């Protein structure tokens, strides 16, 4: 258990939260793929901490650089012909997607984990590396036509 929830419950909350965010903020639907524990290489994305009195996790969204560009453009409601966003604006928008997602997840787990506090999102490039202490659970998803991964970073030694 992490902060009062099983990993499968966290992953379900992440997938359901993403569905809400995609419909409400990105104008698309999501398709859930498989869950596993091997983050793909070559990804970029953003993550954010949810920490409470009973432990915490970090949750994130990752995709290819092109996928991040597409997600940012969807958030901003950009026309297909509009020019590419610069990297800092892609990072800002993907961080905001994760911020909204974290709010949706927090609302879903409120009963089991009422003390959770949200951190601020951070953008990253490259694979999320599991360690002896840190495990990464992954849910492959399609957001509209964009292949992406939902990430849950959590301690291996569960409370």
């Amino acid at each position, binding site marked *: 258990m992490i902060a009062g929830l099983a990993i499968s419950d966290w992953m379900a909350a992440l997938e359901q939260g993403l569905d809400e965010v995609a419909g409400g903020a990105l104008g698309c639907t999501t398709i859930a793929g498989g869950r596993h524990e091997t983050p793909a290489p070559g990804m970029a994305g953003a993550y954010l901490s949810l920490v409470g009195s009973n432990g915490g996790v970090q949750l994130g969204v990752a995709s290819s650089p092109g996928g991040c560009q597409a997600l940012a453009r969807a958030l901003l409601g950009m026309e297909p012909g509009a020019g590419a966003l610069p990297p800092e604006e892609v990072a800002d928008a993907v961080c905001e997607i994760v911020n909204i997602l974290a709010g949706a997840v*927090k609302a879903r787990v409120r009963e089991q984990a009422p003390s959770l506090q949200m951190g601020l999102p951070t953008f990253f490039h490259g694979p999320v590396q599991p360690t002896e202490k840190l495990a990464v659970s992954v849910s492959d998803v399609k957001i509209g036509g964009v292949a992406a991964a939902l990430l849950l970073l959590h301690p291996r030694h569960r409370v």
Partner: protein
Amino acid sequence: MQILIVDDSKAMRSIVMRAVRQAGFASLNFQEASNGVEALKVVRESPPDLILADWNMPEMTGIDLLKALRAEGNAVKVGFVTSESDPAMRDLAFQSGALFMITKPFSPDSLKAALEPVLS
């Protein structure tokens, strides 16, 4: 009429401005700030008619911004547009003087419903 949008995300400031216009308030002027500290500076230099603030921001959060304004005796109208809004946060926001709290992702209709009584 001036609206100050306070959010640490440039993307979200842009989205809120667009949504306000789409909600039928096309003639408003916008100011921007990326956190509560910047917002306080803007308010002191060019007082807005309404502040739309995020909650979770670096430097100074939205609720701390609202408390700081009220501590200065500033009664500017404030509403929150935030990704999290649990009952305790809502209570704190309204006790501190917020007029409304909209949760992201929001629809143009929910924004319009919140803004109409404030801006009319």
